[in-house]
Structure formats: C-alpha cells, structure tokens
C-alpha cells in the first residue's frame, strides 16, 4: 500500500523524508508529494502520522498516481495545518516517527546481517566433510551435527541430536570418565585437545584428533561446547610406518659392513654409521653437516652429488653395477682406496644419496700382489721357456762338432790306434750321442704344448693312426698287437694328441714283459664334459710308489742297459695333456701291466 500526502516543507523536512521515508515528488504548488514505500519505516511513519493527524487523515490512496480528487483532501489538510501549532505537532510527530523508525531499522539491519551470517556459517559448517563439527550443551548432549560428523562417525543428525556425546568414546574411556573429564577441562581452560580412539556408530574405532571448545556468554555462563574432530588413523599409520621404516633404515645402516654416508643435495653429510666413523676416524657429530668432500677428496664429491641427485630414476640406473674406485681421506689426512656404491633416497628434504663406502686397501694390495706375482711368474716362465729352447739349440752346435768329430775319429781310426784309444773314442762317442739325445728331448719338451695352434675338431682315431705309423719299426720288431675301440671326434690339437699316443704306445711296447706286447687304446665319456683315454698294456707294470715320479722330466726307473731312454716321454705327455686342459695318471701293478689314462675336455668346435 502506498500512502501519499502533501506537506509544505523546508529543507530539514525534506531531508528526513527523502532519506528515511520515501521519494518526494516536487510540484509547482510548493508542496511535495510523499510516497511512502512498503518498508517498515514507511509503515511506521504512516501509523504515527495517522495518529497525529487523527480526524483529518491523510488520504489513503492506492497505487494510482495523484489525481484531482486526491489532491483536494491534501489541500484541505494543508489548510488545517496552517497554524504554527499544527506545524509543530506535525514536525514532532514526524521526527519521533523518524527516530523510532531509525532504531527499528538499525536493529532490523543487524538482525538481518546476523541471520545472514548465521546462515552462511551454518552452510559452511554443515558442508564440511573432513571434520566432524558439532555442538554440545553443557551436559554433553549433541545439539547440532554437520556432514563431516555424519561421515566420520556414521550417525545421521536426527539419530544423534539429543544423545550424549559419550557414545563416541570407547567403553573403557567411558568407564574411566573420559567424556566428562574432557568437558571439564574444556570448561575450565576454554579448550581441550586430545588424540584418542573414538568409536563409530558401527562400533569400529578410529584414531581422532579432538578439540572441544567451551562457549560462554558475555556474562561468563557456560552455554555449551563445540567439538571439532578429525580422523587421523591414516596419518597415524603413515607416521608409524615412516617411523618403522626409518628405524629399519637406521638399523640397516648401522648393521652394514661398509661405511654408509648419507649426503644431501648440497653435498653435506646428514647421516653416517659406525663403520663410517671407524673408517674415516671421525666422531659422528664431527661429520654431520660437513661437506662430503672433506672425507672424499676433491673432484669426486662433485661427481657424487651430480650423479646422485640428478634424478632418483637416473641415479638408480647409475648405481646398478657401478662401483667407482676412489680414495677416501681420514681425519689424520691419510688416504685409502675405496669403492663406492651410490643409491638415491627420496626424503621430505629432497633426494638424498646413500653412499656405501668400502675400504678396499686389503683387496687392492692383494690384487696388486697377485698381478705382480702373476707377472713375475709369467716372466720367469717365459725366460725358462726361452732358456730351454736357446740352451738346447745353442748347445747343439758345439755338441754336433764333438759328436761328428769323435764319430769321424771312430770311423777313420778304429783299429789303427791301440785298444785304449778305441775304448776312449767309444766312450766319447757314446757320451756325445747321449748328450745329443738329451738336448733334443729337452728341446722337444720345451716346445711341447707351445705351438699355440687353434684347436679344431679332429678324429682322435686319426691321431692314434698317425702315432702308430711313426711306431711302425718298434711294432714290427716286437710283434706288438695294438688294438683300439672306436675313438671319438674331439676338439683339440691333433699333432700333440698324436705325440701323446706315440709316447704312450711306444712306452707300452718298450717296457714289455717276456710276452708279446698287447696294447689296447680306448676312450670313454666321463660324467663331466671330458673324455678319458686309456692306453692299456701287458708290460712290466710300475710300482705305485713311482706313479708320480715317472711323469717328471728325465726321471727314469731303469738303467740304460735295461731300457734306453732319457726319461722325457711321459714328461712331454704330461705337459701336452695339461696344456690341452686335461690330466694324466697311471694305474698299474708290477708285472700286471699298466694303464695310462688321460682326460681331454670336450669343447665347442671352433
């Protein structure tokens, strides 16, 4: 409803109306038409104005604009207000109305703002999902409930409002009076914060961080409490895991046999173990916070940091199989060779690098020692080889002269000098001849196994045939019968194998008994990857005590009168067989024949 009236007015009145009541329409009569709005203050003004002007009421006009009719009563009123008293009354009424109106308006605005902010707050709190937020009356009865509380505790608002909040506590806590105690603390100190097990509607438990805040009015009376709680079960679990991991990591660190140093991205040592203290001669607290290059000298520290912190993934790739050999520096300045393995470690402070540092002084020394020894051995071996070859070769020249000329002497002058001369010459010739054989054998021995030819798959049967061809004369002379099984193809050196067969079969014929020599050659596959060859005879046999000795260079069991020879054959066999990767041995008993056996490894053909 719109009230409209006309007043004669001055500036103050205009201000009052214009600001507080409604719009003022000017017209050329000097009066203004006041449009009362629908606001509270407008209605109030109308009420007051109606009371004040009782009897000569302002014309109530519905929404239609001013007309001739509506203007008349106003003009009439105008006339009555002509007196000063009337004017004063009107003024007082209007001012009083305005004051009442102003207070009411202010209160209304504050009420509206409060309502609005309460609403906002309610929406805000109500929507929070991660926190259970609810209020309690002073006795602990739930009076409000948000979505988060519903989610966390499992109750709907209508289920829980009106219930005592102690149902959130475990029976044990309830027995111990925890709910009351928490409220008392909050009431007394304004606030209580606890971490505790809480119980959901379904009885399951969760770890909660709970803050209870007491609410007092301005006069200090306890109005109730608000409780904000949060499910921190996962966080607690995570903390526990981290704690466990950390203690495990530290345990590992300390148990490690190597010095372990954990370095951050600026190259500072953040952690180290007992071994590191021992190796570098520092106390732990002396090293933590120090640059790693104080214990691992210049140049490497940068690399360590660069490699270690580039990225966890790359660093991981880096550390696989990567041993870096460098030097560590002790507190006393001495250095020692170390081997380092790096591995990245992600941490809240960025990537850390765990360096496992092994003191390899002992290993280095023994490696060096081994290298030296092997080198010396090789040199001495080479020298010996060279010596044997050169000696036998060079010895041969003068010996050839001695032998040739004693032989010439024997041929030309036998029987032309006296018998002593013949005998002396005979000894000289014999000695020279034997010396020649020894030298030739030595030469053969020094060459055996050293031809360095690539190995090929050959027929061991062919090698045997080759040997038998060389032995034609003694076989024929002795009437020996040499038989063999089918012999395998094998990757080895045919010439050298033939040499071994020749020496073994030759010996079998040479060291024969009174019987016609029977020699049998066979081969069988060992369980492993090798062939066992055997040359069995029916000869004089060998006393087991000499089994080792017969394979030694120039060692003989018989005098030259019984069996000629220098004692080279088996030594050469042993050298060749071992050079080809096998072993050689004899099985025998005196007068019961011998079996000479040797193995040759099976290799892939080349």
């Amino acid at each position: 409803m719109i009230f409209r009236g006309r007043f004669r007015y001055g500036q103050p009145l205009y201000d009052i109306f214009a600001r507080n009541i409604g719009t003022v329409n000017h017209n050329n009569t000097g009066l203004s038409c006041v449009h009362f709005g629908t606001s509270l203050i407008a209605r109030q003004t109308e009420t007051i104005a109606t009371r004040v002007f009782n009897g000569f009421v302002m014309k109530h006009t519905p929404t239609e604009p001013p007309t001739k009719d509506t203007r008349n009563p106003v003009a009439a009123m105008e006339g009555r207000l002509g007196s000063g008293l009337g004017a004063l009354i009107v003024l007082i009424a209007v001012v009083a109305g305005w004051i009442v109106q102003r207070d009411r308006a202010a209160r209304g605005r504050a009420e509206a703002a409060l309502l609005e902010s309460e609403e906002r707050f309610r929406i805000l709190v109500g929507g929070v999902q991660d926190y259970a937020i609810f209020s309690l009356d002073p006795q602990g009865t739930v009076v409000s409930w948000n979505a988060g509380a519903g989610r966390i505790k499992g109750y709907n608002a209508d289920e829980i409002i009106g219930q005592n909040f102690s149902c959130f506590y475990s029976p044990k806590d309830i027995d111990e009076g925890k709910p009351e105690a928490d409220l008392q603390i909050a009431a007394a100190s304004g606030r209580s914060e606890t971490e505790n097990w809480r119980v959901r509607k379904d009885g399951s438990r969760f770890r909660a961080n709970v803050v209870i805040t007491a609410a007092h009015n301005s006069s200090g009376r306890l109005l109730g409490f608000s409780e904000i709680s949060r499910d921190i079960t996962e966080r607690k679990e995570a903390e526990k895991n981290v704690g466990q991991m950390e203690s495990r990591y530290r345990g590992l660190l300390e148990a490690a046999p190597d010095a372990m140093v954990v370095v951050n991205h600026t190259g500072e040592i953040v952690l180290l173990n007992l071994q590191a203290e021992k190796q570098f001669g520092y106390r732990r607290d002396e090293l933590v916070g120090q640059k790693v290059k104080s214990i691992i000298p210049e140049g490497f520290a940068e690399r360590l940091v660069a490699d270690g912190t580039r990225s966890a993934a790359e660093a991981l790739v880096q550390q696989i199989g990567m041993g870096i050999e460098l030097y560590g520096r002790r507190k006393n300045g001495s250095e020692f060779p170390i081997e380092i393995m790096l591995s990245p470690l992600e941490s809240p402070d960025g990537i850390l690098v765990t360096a496992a540092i092994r003191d390899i002084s002992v290993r280095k020394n023994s490696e060096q020692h081994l290298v030296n020894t092997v080198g010396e051995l090789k040199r001495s071996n080479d020298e010996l080889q060279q010596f044997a070859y050169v000696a036998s070769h060079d010895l041969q020249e003068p010996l050839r002269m001695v032998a040739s000329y004693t032989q010439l002497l024997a041929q030309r002058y036998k029987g032309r000098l006296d018998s002593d001369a013949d005998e002396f010459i005979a000894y000289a010739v014999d000695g020279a001849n034997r010396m020649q054989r020894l030298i030739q054998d030595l030469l053969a021995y020094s060459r055996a196994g050293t031809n360095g030819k690539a190995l090929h798959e050959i027929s061991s049967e062919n090698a045997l045939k080759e040997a038998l061809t060389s032995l034609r004369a003694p076989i024929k002379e002795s009437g020996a019968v040499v038989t063999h099984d089918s012999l395998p193809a094998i990757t080895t050196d045919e010439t050298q194998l033939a040499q071994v067969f020749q020496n073994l079969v030759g010996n079998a014929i040479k060291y024969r008994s009174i019987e016609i020599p029977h020699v049998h050659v066979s081969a069988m596959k060992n369980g492993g990857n090798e062939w066992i060859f055997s040359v069995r005879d029916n000869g004089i046999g060998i006393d087991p005590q000499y089994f080792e000795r017969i394979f030694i260079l120039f060692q003989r069991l018989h005098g030259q009168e019984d069996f000629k020879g220098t004692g080279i054959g088996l030594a050469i066999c042993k050298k060749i067989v071992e050079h080809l990767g096998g072993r050689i041995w004899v099985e025998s008993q005196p007068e019961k024949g011998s079996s000479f056996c040797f193995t040759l490894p099976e290799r892939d053909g080349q």
Partner: protein
Amino acid sequence: MMELIGTDATPIEVLLVEDSPGDVRLTREAFKDAKVHINLHVAQDGAEAMDFLGRVGKHVNAPRPDLILLDLNLPKKDGREVLEEIKESPTLKSIPVVILTTSASETDILRSYRLHANCYITKPVDLNGFLNVVRSIDNFWLSVVKLPREARS
C-alpha cells in the same frame, strides 16, 4: 743320357758360406767321395760371400759358382740377406742356392723359400746324417740336376 758337368776339364764350382770351420771341414770330407770334381770355395760370412760373388777385393778372380751352400746364421751379413741379394740380382739369381743350416724353425724355412731359396736342408746332428746330406747334395745338385751354364765365365 745325362750330360755330366764337373769332369776333370770343367770342375764344378761350389761356394760354401759357413762360419764354422768344423762344418767346413766336414763338408770337405763329405765331398771327398764326390762323383764329380768339385772346387769348394769358402766364404766365412755374408759380406765375404757377396765380395766373392761380386769379385771384389781378393776375390777379383773368383769364378762364378755353379751352386751356393748357404748357412743362415752368419757374422756381419747374415744368410737371409745374402739370399735376398742373390735372388734380386739379375746376374746371380740363376745360381741355385741350397740353405744348409742348423735352424729347423718354420719361420726360417718359409722365409727362405719366399726369397726363392732352391732348397732348405737342416743340418743333421750326427756325423753320418751330415755326410749323407752332403752326398745327397752332390748326387742331386751336382750330378742329377742340369745346371745353367750360359753365364759361366
């Protein structure tokens, strides 16, 4: 059938390049029984052998040999160099060269043949073997084989 050179009128000229007097003597002994008349000339080292072949110094009147017996291990200039120089020389390369040495090394054998040695013989270590070898040389190179005559002076 076979034309024999080395009759009394035209003896065979053999140059033995050998530093061991013992071997020189043994060679002489062996040639004593030769079927042909042999003039054995001796050079004691490689340098002297080249002087002989080039008729230098005291060898100014040296004959051109029909056969050269060459040891490999020699003082001053060794047998391998001598062989190489002979076989590179247009005038000397037709002279057969028999390597007669103690070396049985594969390397020496191969190298000698690559330098066009006509044959390679390792000196046998015993007397009879040695005598047989020299007689074989006598028999084969000086009797059986037809040697070039065109360049003889």
